[in-house]
Structures are given as C-alpha cells and as structure tokens.
C-alpha cells in the first residue's frame, strides 16, 4: 500500500512508473476510512480534493497540515470553538511554497486548542489517540499530525512547535519531528501562539523526508519580519555514513530525577550506536536548565494572552450574545461572552496567567525576570556550541501517558515539555527521532539540538543514526 511509504520513496516509485498520484490518494483514503475512527487524527478531512496535475518537484504527493496553519478556502480552527467556522482567506507562506512545488494539501490535523497542551486533549473536537496504544495520548500539540503520519493516514505532515509541540508528539508516536531555527521558516499564516517562540516544521516517517520538506518550506519571506535573511542549504545533501569528527555534548541536567528508566536506557543505547559511527561524547553542564519551564510558562502565556486578544467576536469566528444585566455595556459584554464561551479551559487558564504576569505591579517580578533568565539559558547553549556540533538528550521524560491522566493537573502537563522547551527559548533547531520502545511497546524519542541555522548538523547525525537502527521502520498494529 502506497500510503505507508515515505514521500521520497513515492517520488522514486513515480519516476520508475510504479506509482501514480491517483493510486496514492486512493490508498490513503482507504486507510483513513479504516483507521481514522480509532485514531481521530484529523480535525477536517478534505471534502473534495484538488488534484495537482503538474510535473513539478513533489508530483502531487499529499501532505497533512496542522489546523493552525492557513490554507486558502479551508477551515483553520486551531481546534477551538472560537474559530469554529473560520475559513482561511489566504495561504500561509509555507502552503504557497508547497503548492508551488506541486504538493497536494490534504486534510487539517487535530491539535490542542491554539497549540496549548502536550496531549491533544484540549481540542474542541475531542482527543486524538496514540496509534501505538489507543488509550494513550499522541502527545501535543501537533498530536494529530504525528498520529496521522504514524498510522499511515498521511504521507507526511506539517506541525508547529512553541515549546516542543512537534518533537514531543513525534517522540510519543515513533516518527521524526524537526523544529527549525527561529526565523528559518516563515510564520506568515500560522495563527500565532507565542510569536518569539513559534516555528513551523516537518513531521515525517524518516529523516530524508524531514530534510526534503525543510528544503521546500525554509527561506526568507518578506511577509514575516522575523524570518531570517540567511540562505538555506540543500538539507538532503548533508547525509553521510560515518560520523568521524562529530562532537556531541551530553548535558548532565537532562539525566536526573523524573527521567523514566527505560527512556534513559534507550538514549544510552542510541549514544552507543552514534559512538560506533565515530562520534565522540563529553558530559557538559547547561546550568540554567531547571528554570526553563518557569521561564517558558511566563513568556509563552504573556505572548499568548496578547495574541489571543484578537479573538473578540468582531471580525471572524464565534460571537457571544451580550448579556442585558452586564453594567459594562453591550460591547464589552459581547467580548466577555464571546471569549468566555469560545475558549476552552486551558486557553482561559493561559490567558489569565499571561495577563497576570503582564499586569501592572507584576511585570518586573515575572515577565522581565523571565526575559533575563531566558538570556542565561541561551548563553548556556552558545557556550556549548563553541566546542560541540550537537547536544543529545531524551525528547520526553516518559513515554506516552494515558488519556485523562494529567488533564486536571496543569503543572504536571507543563513538566512533560521539560526537555524540549529550552530549544524554543534559545531559538535553536532540534530534532526528535525514534530510538526504541518500552517493554509495553510504547515509542521512545531521542532529541538532538544544534547551533542556530545548523540544521545540516542535525540531519547528518540523524540520518547516520537512522541508517543503523530499525526504529523508524516499525509500524503500530491498529488491527484493521
């Protein structure tokens, strides 16, 4: 079945005359019919597919898109009731680039509401399920994209990553997820969560596809003033067989309490594989690691509370009815009703926290302090990358947890991002790769981080690792 192939495999098959876009789509649709009722990876399946019959690079290969990225004429709801009927009037820059290269936009994937979460449970459409164990979460917030790729309901997908939202679900679903350097990929048309942290990136079945997809979406965009005017390289050209001369740092702060023993063991074995290929290792210290979650939840909620102010029921989305008894007037009452009924619990919680840390009298104590500790976290990485090519850590402290397990305890949910958050705060690229399974057959992920705009270093190490391990070829048994 062609739906289980990677994009680069399909391109080879098409070239050899052994696959066509029609057959890919029919295989994909029949797979979706069978497994989607179990996995629920999609927020919106395409109603009617626009065939892209052109002989360009991607040959009409379909791609699934996270529902916070605008695709013209399709819903973009961020899995929130407040945007339930929002139809995007334009394409995000990444979508324009994909279409230009001949990709077919195929379905919008489920996510935590406004990307607020690590489990896909805060979606207004209900939770997506982990294809490896349907009682467990796929991770989040790009859980729909990761689950769709893992379940072969998508060839590849785009996600977005603000604190780990591409890498953590990739880890929990045994697929590859890359968060590019801040500014590597245009954010134009990505519905903003935290503008100084957000990046769009690939979720794929292997490293080759991640590189191929980054090739398409990377690069300067004048519509996003934070997009870096630095030329991108051909990321598929950095694959090598051995890793002689590659220096990898192991930060001791990532291997302490809270790290599951099986995860630790898998990461240790991954290290041994890389060592055999010629990489050398040294323990280093990233001393401000323990403050990352605190810094993140101040900065991310502050930026989110500001970004979400636009959802006021005036220009688009859901509008609440003003209450006659509200003394603040009809207009203000309309705002409050719209936002009170339109946002889910986690979105409200973050708006309150973000507004609080920015409010008069608390700004210096929380927000400004967090920005300064962010500098220290960034400095830690700058120092390490003077001597090392990559940093190696687990992606998530545990394998997939059960649906409902952490929903009532926001702090424990926030701590599931403990290893991924620092990359966003420092603006550096990071990739998650499958590196093993627990004894209960739950995927474990390995994270590699590199200096800004050095994605090629991540691809080089990841590709060599993947060529020498079986993990990315494993498929969940969905009993269909």
């Amino acid at each position, binding site marked *: 079945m062609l739906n289980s192939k990677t994009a680069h495999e399909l391109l080879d098959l098409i070239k050899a005359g052994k696959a066509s876009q029609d057959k890919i789509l029919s295989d994909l649709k029949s797979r979706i019919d069978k497994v989607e009722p179990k996995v629920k990876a999609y927020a919106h399946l395409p109603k009617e597919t626009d065939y892209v019959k052109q002989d360009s690079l991607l040959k009409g290969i379909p791609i699934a898109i996270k529902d916070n990225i605008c695709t013209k004429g399709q819903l973009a709801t961020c899995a929130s009731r407040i945007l339930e*009927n*929002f*139809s995007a*009037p334009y394409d995000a820059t990444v979508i324009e680039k994909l279409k230009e290269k001949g990709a077919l936009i195929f379905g919008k994937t489920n996510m935590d509401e406004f990307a607020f979460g690590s489990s896909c449970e805060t979606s207004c459409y209900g939770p997506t399920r982990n294809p490896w164990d349907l009682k467990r979460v796929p991770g989040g917030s790009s859980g729909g994209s990761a689950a769709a790729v893992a379940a072969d309901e998508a060839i590849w997908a785009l996600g977005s990553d603000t604190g780990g939202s591409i890498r953590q679900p990739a880890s929990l679903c045994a697929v590859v997820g890359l968060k590019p350097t*801040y*500014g590597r990929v245009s954010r134009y048309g990505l519905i903003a969560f935290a503008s*100084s942290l957000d990046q769009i990136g690939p979720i794929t079945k292997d490293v080759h596809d991640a590189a191929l997809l980054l090739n398409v979406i990377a690069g300067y965009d*004048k519509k996003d*003033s*934070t997009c*870096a005017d630095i030329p991108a390289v051909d990321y598929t050209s950095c694959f090598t067989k051995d890793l002689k001369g590659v220096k990898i740092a192991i930060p001791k702060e990532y291997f302490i309490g809270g790290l599951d023993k099986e995860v630790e063991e898998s990461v240790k074995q991954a290290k041994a594989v890389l060592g055999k290929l010629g990489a050398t290792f040294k323990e280093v210290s990233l001393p*401000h690691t323990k*403050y990352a979650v*605190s810094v993140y*939840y*101040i900065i991310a909620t502050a930026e989110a*509370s500001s970004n979400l*102010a636009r959802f006021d*029921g*005036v*220009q*688009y989305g*859901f*509008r*609440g009815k003003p209450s006659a008894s509200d003394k603040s*007037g*009809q*207009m203000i009452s*309309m*705002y*409050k*009703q719209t*936002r*009170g*009924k339109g*946002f889910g*619990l986690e979105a*409200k*919680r973050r*708006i*309150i*926290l973000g*507004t*609080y840390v920015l409010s008069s009298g608390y700004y210096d104590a*929380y927000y*400004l*302090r967090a*920005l*300064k*500790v*962010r*500098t*220290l976290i*960034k400095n830690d990485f700058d120092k390490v990358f003077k001597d090392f090519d990559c940093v190696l850590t687990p992606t998530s402290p545990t394998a997939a947890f059960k649906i409902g397990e952490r929903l009532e305890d926001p*702090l424990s949910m*926030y701590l599931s991002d403990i290893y991924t958050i620092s990359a966003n*705060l*420092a*603006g550096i690229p990071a990739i998650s790769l499958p590196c093993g399974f627990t004894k209960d057959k739950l995927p474990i992920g390995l994270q590699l981080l590199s200096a*800004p705009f050095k994605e090629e270093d991540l691809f080089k190490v990841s590709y060599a690792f993947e060529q020498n391990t079986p993990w990315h070829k494993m498929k969940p048994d969905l009993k269909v």
Partner: protein
Amino acid sequence: MNISKDTVKYVANLARLGLNDEELEKFSVQLNDILQYIEQLKEVDISKIQPTAHVLDIKNVKREDKPAPSLSIEETLSNSPQKEGSFFKVPKVIE
C-alpha cells in the same frame, strides 16, 4: 504569593474573559500552584543580565511604500459574524 478568586476576577476583566464561578475557583487554586513553582526564578542572580525578547540579531526591516495586492472587502468580511454594507457590525458602543 496568593491569587484569590477576586484577583482572578480582576485579571479576567482586564482580558475581557467571562468566567463562571466554578472556573474562578478552579483557576485560583491552579494558578497558585503554577506561581509557586515559578517562584524558583527568584533565586537566580539577574542583576547584570540583559533581557532577551528576540533570539536573532535584530535589524530594521524596511520596504518601499508601494501598494501590493491585498484582500478584497468581500474576502475581508467573509468570516464576519455580522456585517452591514462594507462594515463589520457590532453591538451599540455609545449609549
């Protein structure tokens, strides 16, 4: 550090966010937990540290002041909950 129900109510009003009593209660407990955790930042010496609002080197981004294609009025209004002519319609603002 203590966030009372009244503080949550005050902040919710700043954010124009309607919350019911149950939510006010729940958030005041949960936000206290989160803020207590965040307190750890007080132990860091930040006296000589500059804040990072943006990780890349920032430079001014300028462009020519030339008109370019943008959304039509119809497209702009296409998602509006209520419209009249070429305007978004809202409840009465001035009594």
